[in-house]
């Protein structure tokens, strides 16, 4: 698809960059969101894999003006300067690999449990964006040898701290919630603390490493 800007109600725009996940597009979407939120300061922005949602107050900024500004950000291309999010950090996630889906996921991937753990803990992941729950970071990519389709029936209750995989991605559930990812382990590292100066542990763009214990 050709990148485009479309209205999302009267107070937001959706910048669509691609149909499919591409490593370079994720950074591009985030850079557009950063510029909107931090440099232009028009309102909050929500980057995702291939899109950036750009919010604004339509009584202060005419939607046509907002569209023009978004189109200009888009026209600057994928080498648009990052702003505001700070340098990426490497976050170590101490992980006990004893999740309820560990054995089945290993079997489905034709791996032993030890092999699956070694693959999962053996690489550094990028936190692509946050969504779903406060502090839930979509991280990837998984080693393609780990085959982890989402559960056909999502669980009603996934405990906070669960380390999970699904469709090439990995994440830590920050809160106890329903969820359809496969649970392979757990961590005590808190992912969300509303009382902290920075409420989320992981920012988009950070690097993540799971450390077996």
């Amino acid at each position: 698809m050709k990148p485009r800007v479309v209205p999302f109600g009267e107070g937001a725009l959706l910048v669509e960059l691609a149909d499919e996940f591409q490593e370079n597009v994720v950074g591009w979407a985030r850079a557009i969101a950063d510029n909107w939120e931090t440099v232009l300061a028009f309102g909050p922005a929500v980057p995702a894999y291939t899109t950036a949602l750009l919010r604004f107050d339509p009584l202060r900024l005419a939607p046509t003006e907002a569209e023009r500004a978004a189109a200009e950000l888009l026209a600057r291309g994928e080498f648009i300067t990052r702003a505001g999010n700070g340098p990426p950090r490497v976050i170590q996630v101490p992980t006990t690999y004893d999740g309820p889906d560990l054995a089945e996921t290993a079997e489905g991937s034709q791996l032993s449990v030890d092999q699956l753990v070694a693959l999962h803990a053996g690489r550094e992941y990028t936190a692509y964006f946050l969504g779903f729950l406060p502090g839930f970071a979509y991280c990837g990519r998984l080693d393609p040898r780990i085959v982890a389709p989402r559960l056909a029936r999502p669980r009603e209750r996934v405990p906070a701290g669960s380390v999970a995989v699904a469709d090439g991605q990995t994440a830590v559930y920050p809160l106890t919630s329903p969820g359809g990812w496969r649970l392979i382990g757990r961590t005590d590292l808190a992912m969300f603390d509303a009382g902290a100066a920075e409420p989320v542990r992981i920012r988009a763009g950070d690097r993540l490493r799971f450390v077996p214990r």
Partner: protein
Amino acid sequence: MIRISESGVRSTVQDRGRFGHLRSGVPPAGAADPHALAAANALVGNRADAAGIEIIGTPFRFTCDDSRLVAVTGRDVSLATRTRLDGWGSVFVRAGQMVTVHSGERTRFAYLALSGGIATPAVLGSRATYLPAGLGAPLRAGDTLPLGEADAGPEDAGRLIAPTTYDGRARAMAGPHDDRFEAGALERFFAATYVIDAASDRQGTRLGGAPIASPAGELQSCGVVAGAVQVPRGGAPIVLLADHQTTGGYPVIATVIAVDLGKVAQRMPGESLRFYRVERDEALDALRAERRALDGVRISA
């Protein structure tokens, strides 16, 4: 201070929402019927960002330690002191005077505003309660909440705002994903009459009725706004409300305009809902008209 002696079924402190941490996955929360809370705030002379109480299931009963202007809004709501007063108007209440918020069988959310606003500490820039993440807690009988300073007197009472007509009609703009659906899907969506599903909550209003075929192929999750009409695989649309997740993976066929969010949120299970297509200019006109109406009431104090 407000002292709550009966708390209804589930009542929470809400403001217009928490928009500063969307990219960290923190949902906006805030009033499910934003216009109703905004109207209640305007009626008691509060700023637009003041916090009030969203009440599900009445009666809700309280006293205040000092005299306050009080207003209740929502669908089929009223207020009782010694006499019973219709909603959508401001009332002067003396220190210690018992006030009861009443609602009807069709009331989903009632909003209570007090002059000065609820002054609980803001968390992440907002006083909005978001229960799934433990931001705030349901209010209980015996709770006391601080109120902000206000100097409104009896002469400021009696102001009125025209109540929202909760008639099962909501205006919506097409998109952003309307062109991914099969031809005719958007027209069918705007022609259909939906029925509210019992599983509706502050996260979204779930609709039953003729299903819409969802587009082939996977959609990458994207940031979403309240009012987004998502169409999951089964074809039964969900209109996202205040507690919506910040990102969603279902295609969005249309987006309910901001001033009509309450007309969706306040529908009860089993009631009907229809969508009327508007363009962005009409949505902006509606927003300006709402702002004028609220400011008009506020300034006349």
